[in-house]
């Protein structure tokens, strides 16, 4: 025990019932090459301080619930290895651009609302009877949106995006990429409805293509690219409505 290597974790602490301001608390954690930041936080919670509050579930980069700021960078803590920081201390904070609920846990409410705003489901004018079978899709049609469907709602992109930080009306990278994912789905007929939402002043146009959402995304969704395509689609829809105010049709394949 005496010879074990250790690493320091500085955790952001905030308990609303007792704290009016957040504070940082340091913990010495045994250093293990195979450990990720989440393992270290779990160790603290299990052996040192049970009051530390954080979210996690899958431990394998799938559930998207363990996102935190690690030394100022939005990261999935289950994928951030201690060995990349050792021997220096690691500062762990809740994701920025979200209200803090408690310690490392942020309020996801606003994010969930924004996801709903883009109607993230297939919209059809004509719903086939199940006896007619599935809506078929070719591999080429799947390729059009597959990348944008890989999102795990980890919200890292919202913490990387400065526009999310200062514009409440901005729907944000993941929500816009999700909307675009359905707009590009050959089975969907709801583009016009979705673009109606995305065309609102800062909903999508607030994006100035900083591009950091794409850099931090653990699933290579490329929300920045999706948003640029969605803007092109939105502009087409805008001009289409300008020309024919009533019958704004779907804008399939725009921006491609």
């Amino acid at each position, binding site marked *: 025990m005496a010879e074990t290597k250790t690493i320091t974790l500085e955790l952001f602490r905030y308990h609303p019932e007792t704290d009016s301001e*957040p504070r940082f608390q340091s913990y010495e954690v045994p250093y293990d090459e195979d450990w990720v930041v989440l393992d270290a936080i779990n160790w603290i919670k299990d052996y040192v301080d049970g009051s530390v509050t954080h979210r996690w579930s899958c431990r394998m980069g799938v559930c998207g619930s363990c996102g935190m700021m690690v030394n100022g960078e939005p990261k999935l803590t289950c994928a951030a290895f201690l060995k990349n920081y050792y021997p220096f201390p690691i500062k762990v904070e809740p994701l920025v651009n979200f*209200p803090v609920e408690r310690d490392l846990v942020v309020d996801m409410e606003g994010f969930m609302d924004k996801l709903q705003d883009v109607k993230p489901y297939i919209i059809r004018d004509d719903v086939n009877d199940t006896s007619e079978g599935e809506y078929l899709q070719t591999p*080429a049609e799947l390729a059009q949106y597959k990348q944008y469907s890989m999102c795990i709602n980890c919200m890292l992109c919202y913490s990387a995006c400065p526009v999310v930080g200062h514009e409440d009306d901005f729907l944000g990278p993941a929500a816009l990429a999700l909307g675009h994912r359905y707009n590009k789905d050959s089975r969907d007929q709801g583009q016009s409805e979705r673009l109606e939402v995305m065309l609102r002043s800062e909903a999508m146009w607030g994006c100035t*293509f900083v591009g*950091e959402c*794409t850099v931090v995304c653990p699933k290579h969704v490329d929300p920045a690219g999706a948003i640029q395509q969605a803007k092109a689609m939105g502009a087409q829809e805008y001009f289409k409505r300008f020309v024919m105010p009533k019958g704004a049709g779907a804008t399939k394949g725009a921006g491609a």
Partner: protein
Amino acid sequence: MSGGQYHRPHRRAWFMERPAYIRFMIREVTSFFMAAYLIVLIVTLAKVGVGEAAAAEWLQALSTTGWKVAHAVALAATVWHTITFFAAVPQAMPIYIGEDRLPDPIAKIVMGYGPWLTATAIILWGVLR
């Protein structure tokens, strides 16, 4: 008792926080220099409209070191605009051939650097001919 949720203070100088944000600001600020050049370009054309003597006088004025430096800055800014703009082309306009996306370097050449070099060559040929 309950302090409720904690909202982090607004970060005024957010653009200094990460190297990527600084790079973003540099890209955005290229537009200030480009706009300034475009105004000078319209002035140049206006002088041509006035007459060849006025245009000659203006072109002589533009040969001073101060103007050369200003144009060099505008050129650097605009070339940076070009490079960053083409960097985004594959993301903003992916081209699919069946299931496969055209590789980024090819997309950049086809939709960016190719037309750029062609246009530049034609313009320089037109001016120097």
